[in-house]
C-alpha cells in the first residue's frame, strides 16, 4: 500500500474525481500554479489545465459564491479556503445560499459543491489562523460537514464529498497535512458521509472525537491502564448517532475530546443526545475534554497547553473511572491555585 502525506492523499482524491467526472473544477487562492499553499492540489493544473483548475483573487465571498452558481448549473466545484477563518467573509454563501438552494427551489436545484478548509492549532499560527470553527456551520440543515483525521479518511471523505449532491464542507486539520500513512486509493475507498469509524476498541469508556484529536486519543489509550472504544465521528452533519449510542450502551461511559473551546463545542450536541437517548446506560457523568474558553494563544508552550494532550486525556479519564465524578478541567484547577 502506498504511503502518502495527508495533503498528497487530498490531491489524489481530487484528481481521481476529476478524472472520473469532467464537471469537477477546483477554485481557490494559489491552488493552481503553486499547487496549493499546503500542496493539497499539487499536479492538478498540469493534468487538468487552467479551465478546470483556477487561482482566484483573495475574494472568498466572490469565489465561494461563484462555486454556488457553478454547482447550481451543472459543475462540481471544489473550493479551497486556506484557513477556515477566511470562511467568515463567505459564510453567507455556504450557510444561507448553498445550504438553502435545494429547499428554496422546491427541489429543482441542487448544489453539489465542496468547500475544503484547513483548521486547527499546533503550528504557531496564532489566534486568527488556528481555530477549528466547525460550530459555525453545525446548526445548518442542508449542509454536510466532515472532518478528516488521517490521510486515508481524508482521501475517502473528499471523494464522497465531491460525489455528494449537496454542499459539503470538509475540514482538514492543518497539523496533519504532513502526516504520512498508508493510503489505499480507488473507488472502494470512499468514506460514506455520516459514518463514524471505530479507531480503537475497549470496554471501560467510549471516547468520541474527530480530526486531529483522534491521534491524541489513540496516543492516550496506548499508555492508559483502561481500554476505550475510540469513535472517530468523521462527519458532523450528519453525525453517526447509532455508532455512539451502541458503544455507550456497552461501556456505560462517554468522554468527548474536542479541539475547540468548552462553550458551544460540537460535543454539546453529542452529549445531549446520549444523555437523553442513552440515559439508562450511563454509569458516570458525560465528560468533555476540551480547550479552555480563550482564543488560541501563540507562545509555543501556551499553545501546547491550550490543546488537550494525550497525558491530559489519560489523567481526566483516570479520575473519572476512579471517582465516578466529573473531573474538573485543568484550568479551573490552576486558577484555584
Amino acid at each position, binding site marked *: 500500500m502506498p504511503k502518502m502525506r495527508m495533503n498528497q492523499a487530498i490531491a489524489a482524491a481530487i484528481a481521481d474525481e476529476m478524472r472520473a467526472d469532467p*464537471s469537477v*473544477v477546483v477554485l481557490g487562492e494559489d491552488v493552481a500554479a503553486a499547487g496549493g499553499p499546503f500542496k493539497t492540489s499539487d499536479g492538478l493544473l498540469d493534468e487538468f489545465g487552467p*479551465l*478546470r483548475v*483556477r487561482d*482566484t*483573487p483573495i*475574494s472568498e*465571498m*466572490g*469565489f*465561494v*459564491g*461563484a*462555486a*454556488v*452558481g*457553478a*454547482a*447550481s*448549473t*451543472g*459543475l462540481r*466545484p471544489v473550493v479551497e479556503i486556506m484557513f477556515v477563518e477566511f470562511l467568515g*467573509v463567505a459564510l*453567507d*454563501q455556504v450557510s*444561507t*445560499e448553498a445550504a*438553502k*438552494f*435545494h*429547499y*428554496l*427551489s*422546491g*427541489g*429543482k*436545484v*441542487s*448544489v*453539489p459543491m465542496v468547500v475544503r478548509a484547513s483548521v486547527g492549532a499546533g503550528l504557531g499560527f496564532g489566534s486568527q489562523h488556528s481555530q477549528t470553527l466547525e460550530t459555525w456551520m453545525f446548526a445548518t*440543515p*442542508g449542509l*454536510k460537514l466532515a472532518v478528516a483525521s488521517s490521510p486515508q479518511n481524508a482521501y475517502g471523505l473528499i471523494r464522497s464529498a465531491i460525489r455528494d*449532491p*449537496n454542499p459539503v464542507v470538509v475540514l482538514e486539520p492543518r497539523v496533519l497535512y504532513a502526516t504520512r500513512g498508508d493510503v489505499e486509493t480507488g473507488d472502494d475507498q470512499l468514506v460514506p458521509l455520516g459514518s463514524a469509524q471505530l479507531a480503537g476498541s475497549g470496554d471501560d469508556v467510549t471516547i468520541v472525537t474527530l480530526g486531529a484529536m483522534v491521534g491524541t486519543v489513540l496516543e492516550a489509550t496506548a499508555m492508559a491502564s483502561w481500554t476505550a472504544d475510540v469513535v472517530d465521528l468523521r462527519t458532523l452533519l450528519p453525525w453517526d448517532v447509532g455508532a455512539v449510542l451502541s458503544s455507550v450502551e456497552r461501556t456505560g461511559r462517554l468522554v468527548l475530546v474536542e479541539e475547540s473551546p468548552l462553550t458551544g463545542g460540537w460535543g454539546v450536541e453529542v452529549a445531549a443526545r446520549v444523555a437523553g437517548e442513552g440515559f439508562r446506560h450511563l454509569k458516570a457523568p458525560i465528560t468533555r475534554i476540551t480547550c479552555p474558553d480563550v482564543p488560541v494563544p501563540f507562545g509555543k508552550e501556551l499553545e501546547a497547553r491550550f490543546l488537550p494532550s494525550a497525558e491530559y486525556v489519560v489523567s481526566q479519564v483516570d479520575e473519572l473511572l476512579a471517582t465516578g465524578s466529573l473531573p474538573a478541567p485543568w484550568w479551573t484547577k490552576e486558577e484555584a491555585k
Partner: protein
Amino acid sequence: MSSSPLERRKALQNDRVERFRRMVEIRSFEDRVKGLFAEGIVHGTTHTCQGQEAVAVGIAAAARPTDQVTCTYRGHGVALALGLTGESVLAEIMGRVAGSVGGVGGSMHLCEPEVGLLPTFAIIGAGIPVAAGAALTAQVNGTDDAAIAVFGDGASNIGAFHEGINLAAIWKLPVVFVCENNQYGEYSRIDITTPIEDLADRAASYGIPGVIVDGQDPDAVEQAMNEALARARAGDGPSLLEAKTYRYAGHSRADTAPYRIPGEFERWYERDPINTFRARLIDEGLLTAVSAEQLEEAVGVALEELVAHVKESPFPEPAAMFRNVYA
C-alpha cells in the same frame, strides 16, 4: 394562465404587445399583492416593484431561456417577465402548494429552472458572485449561454458586488450585471449611501463596459442587454448596466416611503414605463387606445380570477417542511 413558463417567455420575446401586456400584468399584480397584505390575507413581508416593469421585461426580451438569472427579493416582476405564471408567483407569496417552490419560500423566494431563474436572493448582493459562477459553468462547458445578475443600487455597496464583478472580469465570464438603480436602498436615498451619481462608473475599475440605460423603456433595456449579451457570448467578458428607474412603492409592505423628496414621484411618473410604452405601441399601430384599454381590463379580470383561485388553493401539509432539505 394555462401557458407554461417557457411558452410565456417565448410569447413575450416574439410580440411587442405581449411585452406591454406583461408590464401591465406586473403592475396590477404588485398593486394587488400590496392590497392582499394590507387586508391581512397574506403574512410576512413583500417587496413590490411598481415602476420598474420595463427593466424586467427588457431583460426577459433579450435573454435566452437557457441563460441563468439571479435576482433579488424584489423579484416578482422579473419572475413574471421571465415567464413564471401568475399562479406560481402569487401562490408562493400566499404560501400555497401551487407556489413556485411549494409554499416553503414566500415572497422573496422564487425559482424556475425552465426559464433560467435560479433561486432568488433575500441577501443583498449574494446573487452577484452566484451569477458569475453560473457563467463559469457556461465557459467550462463551452456553451454560449450567459448569466445575468439583477440587483439593486444598494447592492453596489456590498463586498459581493466588488468580488463577483472582479472575478467575472479577470476570467472574462459571460455575465451581464444589471443594476436596477431605483434611487433608494431600503429607506435611504442613493446619495446618502453612495458618493457617485452613476453606478455604471464603477465598471471602470474592473476594466469592463459600464452602460447607463433608461430603465423606464423596455426597448432601451432590451437593446443594451442584447449588446452586453453578445459581448458575453463572444467571450469578451462581463458588462455592468445601470438601469435608471424608480420604485413607486416603499421598501417593503409596511413602508409608505415618507422619506421621498416632494415632487420626486410625480417627476418620475411623467415617464411611467407603461404609459410611455403604450403610447409608443399606439404610434406604431400595434395598439389603439381602445384595444389598449381592453387589454388592460382583461389583465385585471384575469388577475381577480387568479386571486380567487389561489385563495381557495391548498396550503402545504406539515410534511412539506421536511422535503428538499437535502438532495
